[in-house]
């Protein structure tokens, strides 16, 4: 069970999980370069999946009042206000510490200001090829579906929260409210609309997205489209365009939901180089074995040294 291929590296997760003839792996390609931050995805997800309210609080972080992905927020649209990064000819590329929500005025004259950018990006569970959450789940509540996605079974989850700490993207979380919700205490996250997929329907968020920023489909095909889109953007001079999560050689074996970003991942609140924690699990068990053995030996020695 523990080998290179099941803990990290490229593989097709559904067959690996034991499905005999699974359908092609399904996932998302989220092209943030065409996201308009309308939050239709957030709302559609909540409507379809009956996800309760998250926060009624203005956060002042541009138009993001949903804060983050969590048990009550399975899609989260990030808003980033900042200077454009496109190099402006004859102008030194300086970070002016602006423009930003809540920033102090800069004394840089207007003419010298680089273009302004407002980045938006809809984040979601990555449905990792090597999903730490699933690996560490002690109850089998998290499972790999025939579509290669990662789904929680509410009725089996015991709320241990291990998956929460294990996810390298900070996606999954235990529901903490509102009071009376039957799923309080239970781990919750995007199911990639498992119940829609089984009916041959697109996930609700993708269906709602007006600009096709969220593309749903076969992961293989989406990866190709993503590559084409990056190439097209590069051709148009948008050199900042890059893919995130599409590389099966990356730390989680590639994600089922990957992204086209216009800046470094961390700008969007994404880890720059996540690695599935269980990749190191054999090493951990080995070290634990050594430590345990040392403890046993140490105990024995404690008695042997001075026999009575």
């Amino acid at each position, binding site marked *: 069970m523990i080998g290179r291929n099941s803990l990290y590296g490229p593989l097709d997760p559904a067959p690996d999980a034991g499905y005999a003839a699974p359908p092609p792996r399904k996932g998302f390609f989220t092209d943030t370069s*065409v996201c308009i931050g309308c939050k239709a995805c957030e709302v559609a997800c909540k*409507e379809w999946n009956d996800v309760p309210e998250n926060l009624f609080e203005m956060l002042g972080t541009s138009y993001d*009042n*949903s804060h983050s992905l969590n048990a009550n927020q399975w899609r989260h649209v990030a808003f980033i206000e900042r200077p454009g990064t496109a190099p402006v000819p004859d102008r030194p590329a300086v970070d002016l510490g602006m*423009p930003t*929500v809540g920033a*102090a005025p800069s004394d840089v004259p207007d003419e010298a200001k680089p273009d302004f950018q407002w980045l938006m990006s809809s984040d979601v569970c990555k449905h990792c090829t090597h999903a730490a959450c699933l690996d560490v789940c002690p109850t089998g509540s998290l499972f790999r579906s025939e579509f290669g996605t990662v789904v929680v079974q509410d009725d089996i989850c015991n709320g241990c929260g291990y998956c929460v700490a294990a996810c390298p993207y900070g996606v999954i979380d235990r529901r903490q409210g509102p009071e009376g919700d039957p799923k309080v205490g239970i781990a919750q996250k995007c199911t990639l609309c498992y119940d829609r997929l089984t009916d041959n329907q697109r996930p609700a968020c993708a269906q709602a997205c007006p600009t096709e920023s969220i593309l749903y489909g076969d992961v293989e095909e989406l990866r190709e489209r993503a590559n084409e889109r990056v190439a097209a953007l590069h051709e148009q001079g948008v050199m900042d365009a890059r893919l995130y999560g599409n590389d099966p050689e990356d730390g989680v074996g590639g994600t089922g939901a990957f992204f086209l970003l216009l800046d470094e991942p961390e700008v969007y609140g994404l880890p720059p180089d996540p690695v599935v924690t269980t990749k190191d699990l054999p090493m951990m068990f080995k070290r634990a074995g050594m430590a345990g053995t040392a403890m046993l030996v140490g105990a024995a020695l404690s008695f042997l040294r001075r026999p009575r």
Partner: protein
Amino acid sequence: MAEAHPVGFQWVVEAKKRGARIIHVDPRFTRTSALAHQHVPIRVGSDIAFLGGIINYVLENELDFRDYVVNYTNAATIVSEDFQDTDDLDGLFSGFDPETRTYDPTSWQYASEDDGGEQHRSQASTSGDHVEHRDTAAGMQHESHGHTASAHPPRDETLQHPRCVFQVLKRHYARYTPEVVEQVCGVSPEDFLAVCRAWTENSGRERTTALVYSVGWTQHSVGVQYIRAGAILQLLLGNMGRPGGGIMALRGHASIQGSTDIPTLFNILPGYLPMPNAASHQTLTDWIDSVRNPGAKGFWANAGAYGVNLLKAYWGDAATPDNDFCFDYMPRITGDHGTYRTVLDMIDGKVKGYFLLGQNPAVGSAHGRAQRLGMANLDWLVVRDLFAIESATFWKDAPEIETGEIVTEECATEVFLFPAASHVEKEGTFTQTQRMLQWREKAVEPPGDATSELWFFYHLGRMVRERLADSSDERDRPVLDLAWDYPLHGDPEQVAAGWGEPSAEAVLKEINGFEVATGRPLSSFTEMKDDGSTLGGCWIYTGVYADGVNQAARRKSRHEQSPVAPEWGWAWPLNRRILYNRASADPEGRPWSERKAYVWWDPEKGEAGEWVGDDVPDFEKTKPPSYRAPEGSDGVAAIEGIDPFIMQGDGKGALYVPQGLVDGPMPTHYEPVESPFRNLLHGQQANPTRKEYRRADNPLNPVPEDGRPDVFPFVFTTSRLTEHHTAGGMSRYLEHLAELQPEMFVEVSPQLAAERGLEHMGWCHVITARSAIEGRVMVTERLRPLRVEGRTVHQVWMPYHWGQGGLVSGDSANDLFGISLDPNVLIQESKVGTCDVQPGRRPTGRALRDYVEGYATRSGAVDEVSTPIVTASSDAVRRSQEAQDEGKDQHAPHQVEDQ
């Protein structure tokens, strides 16, 4: 567009993916700007200067599409020698009457055929009572009817005649240089020229540009002229009636287009027929002729049939040729019955009862305080809504409760709140931006007692008629004679009890029209007769039920039909997707280019040739391009083979509008009513003909003058957030939407924040002469101070979605606005005002009123309710009026209602 029309914006994104360049001209950086290649910040309310600059750029550089302009627009038409322009009259056009602040458009007319001769009767006839035109938003009636003109006004096709429209236009806009644009709009010459280049380079034979606007362009005291300026540009560049071109008003509420086609407005009837006027429409013939304009060109010549069919639809068998089809039953208007007039009348105790359906004026309409005080002074109020909105709960939670202006125990308004079925809970059609009707089925049963509007009015009417059944009073006849019979369906028990749901499809069939004798649905309004043998509720909708089939319910995939997708829904008129599409072919009837082929003349088709193409040709099918009207013809026969704009009096696109507009034949830059700047171009500061209600409860912030403190130094504008809907009734009451933007906020630039000591996420309040409202501060570089007329102007932005009700509540931005209206259509200027911004929360209770009044007094808004509106030099006013007096002796003096 991305903010308020995200679904439509997908096509912009698609175009961008295919290489289109997106430029966004908006005071602030929005979600649209985020995806645009370039954002051009502009000072609110200065767009005519901006567009005028582009018009000037086109004309100066001869970038117009000359073949199109000469043949299809009125560029060559010669204007009367009496006409004088704003340049000569300090911002006024000729014909201004300073007392009524209206124009007599006589001097604006085309020159007559034989110079010095009489004006054609069709032209003279619209020069009626101009105050009344303004009061009844007659501009709206006439805009849709086209101006009238003699069939053959003199033309100079070389466009050299000094008085031809082309030259008039060129002179008018010569002052709108890039420097002026920079000074007035705060737009840099580089940004401005980039827009000019993009627009012109993408127009012509091979390419077309679409102009898409929405309410950022309309809610101004010069709103109509904003759109006119856009129209001039689109005509000059040959972008009208062609695929990929046109002007699209992105409409607001679902089916707001439908609610002008089959209107909820006081001054028009279905199909843009004018609401009869007590003074001028004594008889059916008066009424019809006012639309038909005997002698004019175009399709309004058949107005008689449209009017009679409507009357027949209302009164059925009771409507006969002998009784003028019950024309006497029609209510008449007598002047301004617009929403703002009505609200002021409520305050004055002149209105007893009020129906509010799908509207939340306590939050959504300008001058919120006046709205609420008005409603608190009614006897009864009926509200039908999905939720208990502010307009239904004002008597217990209006901000005026806190200030003591409304006392719950004393408020005598009896409020009847009826739960309404939402759009998914009832069947019917939506008519969207593109004039397309789309049928929707009922998806779910309405909850509880909620019912559809159709149900409510049908049964209300039925019950009223039952009450009146025995009445012999003449005045009850119009109600008793109504054709009020629709099949009921739905829950069989309800139907049996007489409380079923009226069939919306039956209503659609009636709107479509049918032959009275046989019940055969009409397939075109050309089948409508003026003898009572047909009836139809809205002539422009005729065909939606052609062949007894609900054409609006068609849902054929776009992949299975031509690019025009004629089998998706149904667009009026006659399922035509692009209006005036004859203009997509050249004068000889050939496509302007292969790439842009749409509708063209095929000489091989039919007996002697036919117009063909993907769309339904907007031209008589067999009228060849070579057709020239015989001498003395009028109506449809007067439309020549090269007159694509078939609803216009001369068949030409109007670069210059000789009648129909209250405030001038060409757009000219005026400052907003409230502005921190003097009009750079003319002495005339703001639109001199604007509709104002000068009363103590409607003070307007004065324009700063030397020697008086400038207490309202900033410009503010209000608009939408994607997350909320208008007055919030459909978003603040729903948790999944409310949590997305949970608090009222005010966006300010870092510079303004520093100047006023505002802290990000702290509180601030915004003050005008009407009120002060508070919100959280959002400091963002998306707002940038602009340099205008050499000074820095700070613009403040606010969403207008909040009120006291709902899951998330906050102060309402509309409390800041006063009432001043565009004179043509009576829309409020709710996109621009002046204000002050201060850190911290506003005062509460009575102190709030004192605080606001303090500001008003210091600014001079109180003692100077009579700030002059006419600010052009007295000499200019005199000369303008002289031009009027020459042609205006026949008119009686008017009563001046708004001193």
